[in-house]
């Protein structure tokens, strides 16, 4: 029973973590809460659905396509809606982000209609299997494994590659990074690309998990992932993963204990508590004023 809930929680939490990573990386570099991030996730889910449903691609190819599309979308959003506001007040960029978020979800509603759509049944034929007495679906295992691989890839990019290191440098000190000859605008685009790709993968996985893709799915998932990022410490990459997993486990446990109508409230309770008790989050740096 415990193992059962743990696996349910980790599967759900992995998807939160995938989305939370985008929030945290973008915040780390330009100190902006990208409120359109949930819609990038939604767009990824729709593109995955189209590729799997209409073009009959297998789930992994559909996911790859969705990631590429969302990458371009995320970079485009930054370029059009945030970059011109880079030197204005943070509030302007935040309002711009909310505008983009509304624009994208409305656009999706016009294109795909207001009703939720499901993935074709053969997109991923899931089976139930027994692991140590727990009933686990192969779909859950797929979600956990895919997320783990993506996070590992992210870790390698950020720790080992030249661009990844430049990304960490820019998130520590934007100006000093520029003085090293790092094109910080490129690094910002790169960060949006990475975060958006992960969100798209999350979108496809969530779409398959709940068998539902809708124009407004980005709002709920986005806010929950944001709560996860804050819980882990916004700006911290391991924090986003930890926060996502903890939130997923807490939510599933809450439901198992019979508080299923409170399901979506749990994330907000956590968000409020973290902000009250430890605003820097579990793994976050003490808030420093960025010069």
């Amino acid at each position: 029973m415990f193992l059962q809930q743990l696996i349910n929680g980790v599967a759900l939490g992995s998807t939160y973590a995938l989305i939370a990573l985008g929030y945290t990386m973008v915040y780390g570099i330009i100190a902006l809460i990208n409120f359109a991030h949930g819609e990038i996730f939604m767009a990824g889910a729709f593109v995955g659905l189209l590729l799997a449903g209409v073009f009959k691609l297998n789930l992994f190819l559909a996911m790859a396509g969705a990631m590429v599309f969302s990458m371009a979308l995320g970079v485009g959003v930054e370029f059009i809606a945030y970059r011109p506001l880079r030197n204005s007040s943070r509030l302007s960029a935040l309002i711009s982000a909310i505008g983009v978020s509304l624009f994208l979800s409305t656009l999706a509603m016009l294109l795909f209609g207001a009703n939720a759509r499901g993935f074709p049944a053969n997109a991923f034929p899931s089976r139930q299997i027994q692991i140590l007495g727990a009933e686990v679906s192969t779909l859950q295992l797929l979600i956990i494994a895919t997320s783990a691989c993506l996070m590992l890839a992210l870790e390698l990019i950020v720790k080992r590659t030249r661009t990844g290191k430049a990304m960490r440098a820019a998130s520590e000190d934007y100006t000093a990074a520029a003085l090293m000859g790092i094109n910080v605008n490129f690094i910002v685009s790169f960060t949006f690309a990475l975060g958006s790709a992960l969100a798209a993968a999350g979108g496809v996985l969530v779409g398959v998990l709940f068998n539902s893709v809708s124009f407004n799915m980005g709002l709920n998932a986005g806010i929950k992932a944001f709560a996860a990022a804050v819980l882990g410490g916004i700006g911290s990459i391991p924090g986003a993963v930890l926060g996502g997993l903890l939130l997923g486990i807490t939510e599933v446990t809450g439901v198992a204990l019979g508080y299923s109508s409170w399901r979506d409230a749990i994330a907000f309770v956590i968000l409020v508590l973290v902000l009250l008790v430890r605003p820097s989050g579990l793994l976050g740096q003490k808030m420093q004023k960025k010069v």
Partner: protein
Amino acid sequence: MLEINGLSVCYGAIRALHAFSCRVGQGEIVALIGSNGAGKSTTLNAVSGIVPASGGSISFKGEEIRGIAPHRIVRLGISQVPEGRRVFGRMSVLENLEMGGYTLKERKRLKEGMERVFSLFPRLAERRNQQARTLSGGEQQMLAMGRALVAEPQLLLLDEPSMGLAPLLVEKVFETIVEINRMGTTIVLVEQNAHMALAIASRAYVLESGEIVLEGSSADLAVDPAVQRAYLGGAV
């Protein structure tokens, strides 16, 4: 090598630098001295492209560089060691140096650059895998200077390298600056410690509220009564 003519910089309504002109010849050490807020750092930041100039020209090796993005200026051969060191604290010493060599295309040149820095600052080699924030202030200053040297700049802009360091370390840092200069790097040095700056610079400019009030050879300025009164604490 570097020629600045009539440079002005404003932060909002505040004029930080007004009609500033100076020239720095190949192989020189030139000091900019003056009190806090006189516009010294602003000058360096304008050269590095970090703050936009509102007027005037900056030319490097005969080419206008005003308005060029900071990362391109580094590629032209101008590196800056910013005030307060600003090393990447959560990255290792090695990674910090790697960032200093970010503009180098070939792996080999990066390696050579790092070796050069390690021979100049053996202490950094000892601590290569340590996170930069765990270094002492003096070591961080070495790292900040080393980081700027990896890419072998032709012109090095040093902003307050002595800030917050113990007197013994200050001397060590200035010795190193002279050594870097001897190896062929032209240096512009911004300092509040006018005493030390005048000791190693060939020429200096004295700034006050964004304008040059005096300029000349360091030897002349060091005995100038006005400079002595204002920046050298009376008799030398």
